[in-house]
């Protein structure tokens, strides 16, 4: 891998990790409301996949969507502003963490409905096919969503119509409290792709290079008009399902063990320095830049005006 690509991937991953940590602090301070779902531990997937996407390619995301949003190029200030319920937020405080969209960058939205984005990405791919463009759509979702009818219906539609859509399943071992082994009678989720006649690829989600390479091939293939694909990345979420999750379904050993054994940021630093693509000092410098950028973003967000009152019918309907 070339140095600029490696450093870009690292920077995006660090941005995501920093965002999740900072959002957690803001939550603890009582500045956020509702719920947030941390993507910490899964950064390499969003970073590795979105590195291949253009601004006019589309993604659909999930309740655990901050990482996808950042990897697709969102402005951090507007993301924080959304979490803080400001008018300057991406959704003017109407959406919040689970509904951030950034249509200017092709992010068709996070989704509070497990599996809800999968048919939508499929429809976006239909637009590309219909209009004869080389755009692609990527749908990110969890292992839990892979058991929704939405996934199965969409995968079938995409394959019979050869749509340029990549289904990216982030297998973080749990759907809320349900372990993957109790939700699937198969070991390899990607084997489901065979039932739809599309390639199924399983990668180690802690290795951003593996994600980057696999996604690159599948996305290029879709762009060439060769149809959809299913990418499953094995990963692990460092935090609970949501902020404040008591995690009764996991042992302390498991939680601590995974967190120290499974950290894609540590891995990424290691291979970048070992491959001599950058020094530890250079990576530290990126970390420092990311922190400064994030602090500025939060300050900007906190200075924003509160979300304006709901205006009807204009907030709800385009015309009425």
């Amino acid at each position, binding site marked *: 891998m070339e140095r600029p690509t490696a450093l870009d991937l690292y920077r995006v991953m660090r941005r995501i990790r920093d965002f999740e940590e900072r959002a957690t602090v803001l939550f603890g301070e009582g500045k956020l409301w509702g719920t947030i779902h941390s993507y910490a531990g899964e950064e390499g997937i969003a970073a590795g996949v979105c590195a291949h996407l253009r601004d006019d390619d589309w993604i659909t995301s999930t309740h655990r969507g901050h990482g996808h949003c950042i990897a697709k190029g969102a402005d951090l200030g507007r993301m924080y502003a959304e979490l803080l319920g400001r008018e300057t937020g*991406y959704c003017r405080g109407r*959406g919040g963490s689970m509904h951030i969209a950034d249509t200017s960058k092709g992010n068709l939205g996070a989704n509070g409905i497990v599996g809800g984005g999968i*048919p*939508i990405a499929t*429809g*976006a791919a239909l637009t590309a096919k219909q209009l004869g463009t080389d755009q692609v759509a990527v749908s990110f979702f969890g292992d839990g969503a892979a058991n929704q009818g939405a996934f199965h219906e969409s995968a079938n539609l995409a394959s019979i119509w050869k749509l340029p859509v990549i289904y990216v399943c982030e297998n973080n071992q749990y759907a809320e409290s349900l372990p993957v082994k109790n939700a699937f009678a198969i070991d390899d989720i990607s084997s489901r792709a065979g039932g739809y006649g599309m390639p199924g690829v399983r990668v180690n989600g802690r290795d951003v290079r593996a994600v980057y390479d696999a996604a690159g091939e599948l996305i290029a293939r879709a762009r060439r008009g060769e149809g959809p694909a299913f990418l499953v990345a094995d990963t692990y979420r460092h935090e609970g399902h949501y902020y404040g999750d008591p995690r009764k379904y996991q042992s302390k050993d498991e939680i601590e063990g995974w967190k120290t054994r499974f950290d894609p940021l540590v891995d990424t630093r290691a291979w970048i320095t070992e491959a001599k693509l950058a020094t530890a000092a250079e990576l530290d410098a990126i970390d420092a830049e990311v922190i400064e950028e994030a602090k500025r973003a939060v300050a900007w967000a906190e200075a924003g005006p509160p979300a304006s009152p709901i205006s009807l019918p204009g907030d*709800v*309907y385009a015309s009425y």
Partner: protein
Amino acid sequence: MTGATREMFYNEALGEALRLEMERDERVIVLGEDIAEHGGAFQVTAGLLDKFGPTRIRQTPISELGIVGAAVGAALTGLRPVVELMYVDFSGLAMDQLVNQAAQNRFMFGGQARVPMVMRTQGGSGRGNAAQHSKSLEAWFTHVAGLKVVMPSTPADAKGLLTSAIRDDDPVIFLEHKLLYRTKGQVPSGEYLVPLGKADVKRAGTDLTIVTWSREVLFSLEAAGKLAADGIEAEVIDLRSLVPLDRDAVLASVRRTHRLLVVHEAIKRGGYGGEIAAIVAEEAFDDLDAPPRRLAGLETPIPYAQHLEKTVVPQVDDIVRVAKELVA
């Protein structure tokens, strides 16, 4: 109506609207089951495959959720999809995409999104299709902020409203009635739009206002004819579009006639008639000479047997009877 008209069936009028809009705008595509060679379960898309080919008349597998969801995604990204869902009774399978996605994207994303899609489907009883193929579910959709709900009763309205629905930038639930498809009427030729949110006075009258929609418009008009023979002049207002609702038309009429009867085929409990009655009670109470009345479906699934089916939804004589009670 001015200009040239042609006598057409309701389903032909719908097909004509689709054809004209597809000719006008290549972003309009149709998705649905059996809509290609077969022409759709109710022959609305008959002939369109030959004209527009299989990429624009996109026949789908039986995947209501997938189809409606794909339409949402396509609408968000630049197409103007029209989904044909064979029966409104199947909409439960697609409800997440309608209610949580299509309806709310614009709001949730702070105005960034537009979802210009139409879900055409049909409902209603009267053909012996029994409980799972005969319901009237418009109230479900009217309850969802972000959806528009349209129910044409005549071939001309069917054409004009579908044209407007396709050009509308919000998701529109377009509810046809299975027994209206083979009704005939004069339909304006060429481009014809009926705006969403405009009720139509299908018959003028002075003694009571009947507010109704879909197939019950036809029943109400027939009832009004019988009432006239007994010296009672009923005004029949066809809402045509339930959301947006033409409140002004309803209120203005009730202020003249001082009596309201709402008639619909859907079950009375929780039905949209309650909304109409409540609006009139809240805003025109002093103009009323009698309490508002609702005549609507019984709280039962639709039965199969021919003699039973009729007993659970308002028939012409029921309307005559209740109207007479109201003016008595």
